[in-house]
């Protein structure tokens, strides 16, 4: 990325990022090995860290439906609305649905959204256990933005110019739905969620 003048905090973050990537050089972001389908976004590898500072490969999110978007914690208007829209979408579903669905929010802001900032953002938006807030080095975040087609640009003042989108991935990482509608649940997204993760059938069933 653009090598701006380095602050000490950036140095520490980069050091953390270096640890996060395992200092694996040269590292080739190679095509993923099976079983990811050819149209899965998990063909794109990226190393992130979560709000606890734990490093993970974002491809480990496979195996369950995933609502995913991107944000940055200093964003005052649109990004909080993304959080709110996702929450409303989940709450508006019939009881018992979306039991397996999780949420991943990836920060654009490699410089400032360290684990502590992610924890603060999670608290601010009342994120429960199904939410993962994550950050990464600029190259990892750029790769996520490319995989999800969420363009973004860092502004000189430290903010970000970015597209807004909420994506729904199936368990294999295929993009099932995409919405730019904020402020209220998008019916198309909600229907796709219901299809992927419907309410569990009642136990026992009718034995007559």
């Amino acid at each position, binding site marked *: 990325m653009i090598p701006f003048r380095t602050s000490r905090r950036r140095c520490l973050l980069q050091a953390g990022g270096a640890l996060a990537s395992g200092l694996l*050089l040269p*590292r080739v972001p190679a095509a993923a090995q099976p079983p990811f389908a*050819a149209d899965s976004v998990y063909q794109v590898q990226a190393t992130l860290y979560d709000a606890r500072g734990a490093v993970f490969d974002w491809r480990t999110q496979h195996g369950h439906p995933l609502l995913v978007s991107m944000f940055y914690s200093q964003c005052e208007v649109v990004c909080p609305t993304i959080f709110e829209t996702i929450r409303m979408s989940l709450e508006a579903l019939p009881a018992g649905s979306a039991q397996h669905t999780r949420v991943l929010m990836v920060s654009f802001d490699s410089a400032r959204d360290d684990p502590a900032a992610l924890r603060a953002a999670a608290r601010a938006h009342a994120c429960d256990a199904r939410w993962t807030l994550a950050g990464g080095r600029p190259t990892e975040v750029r790769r996520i*933005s490319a995989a999800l087609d969420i363009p973004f640009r860092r502004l000189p003042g430290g903010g970000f110019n970015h597209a807004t989108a909420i994506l729904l991935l199936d368990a294999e990482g295929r993009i099932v739905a995409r919405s730019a509608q*904020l402020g209220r649940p998008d019916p198309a997204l909600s229907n796709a969620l219901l299809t992927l993760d419907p309410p569990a059938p009642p136990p026992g069933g009718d034995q007559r």
Partner: protein
Amino acid sequence: MMRIGLYGAAWLLLVMAGVLTPPPAAAAAAATGAAYVNIPGGRFISVLPQGDTPASAGPVDVAPFRMRADPVSVAEYADFLRRYPEWRRDRVAGTLADKGYLGSWAGPDDPAQPAHTGAGPDALAPVTEVSWYAASAFCAAEDARLPAWIEWEYVAAADATRTDARADPAWRSTILEWYEHRDPTPAAAAASRRPDVYGVRALHGAIWEWVEDFNALFIAGDSRTQGDPDKLAFCGAGALSVVDRENFPVLMRIALLASLRAADTTRHLGFRCARDIRPESP
């Protein structure tokens, strides 16, 4: 030393957990012999506004870095495929490269087969028909990265004797001439390959080139979308407008890159790599 040991242990654990793949035996990947040149840093005004508002042109400090003197060639990319066969066109996933990936090559890992005279691209020509993911992977394999847009633009502003020739109408006119001709004359092609003041060649005329932040270049067609807080499709003061509308060669490149997605390939889009310069230890 302890920290190195900790990092090494962490890496080993991640490898064993299957999260990371170990470097291939050809860690001599870095020893491809590709020529990189030093690009000294400097203050630069981009055609894309870098100021506090979408329309203001603030100067940017471009830190020193190293850049490949030439675009990555077909032969170099074929060598990359031999070391990383998962990037062959018959093996790579469609998410990472579209159907046009290496489409002109005679074989999945060989640009030209001996039995087919004239088939496939010239081995020394810049490789094209590669996606952003593929280009990024190639650069990572030689311990490098794609250049940022501002780095590419900074170097591309130079001519044979000046680091910034953009104010010279003759420079702009020469470059526009190259773009006007899909198949440049041998003289024009040779001219585009002459090194600039840094020793970098063929930044203009031959091919378009990927940059690391290709999807940071979204620009508005007009000024009506600027500063519209209700436009929730874009957060952060809307899309960019360009500062310098006279620099058509650069504007054309921005327009192309801004229209692409990471898996896209085109016949005239290639790339070159860049490297950070490690900071001096105090």
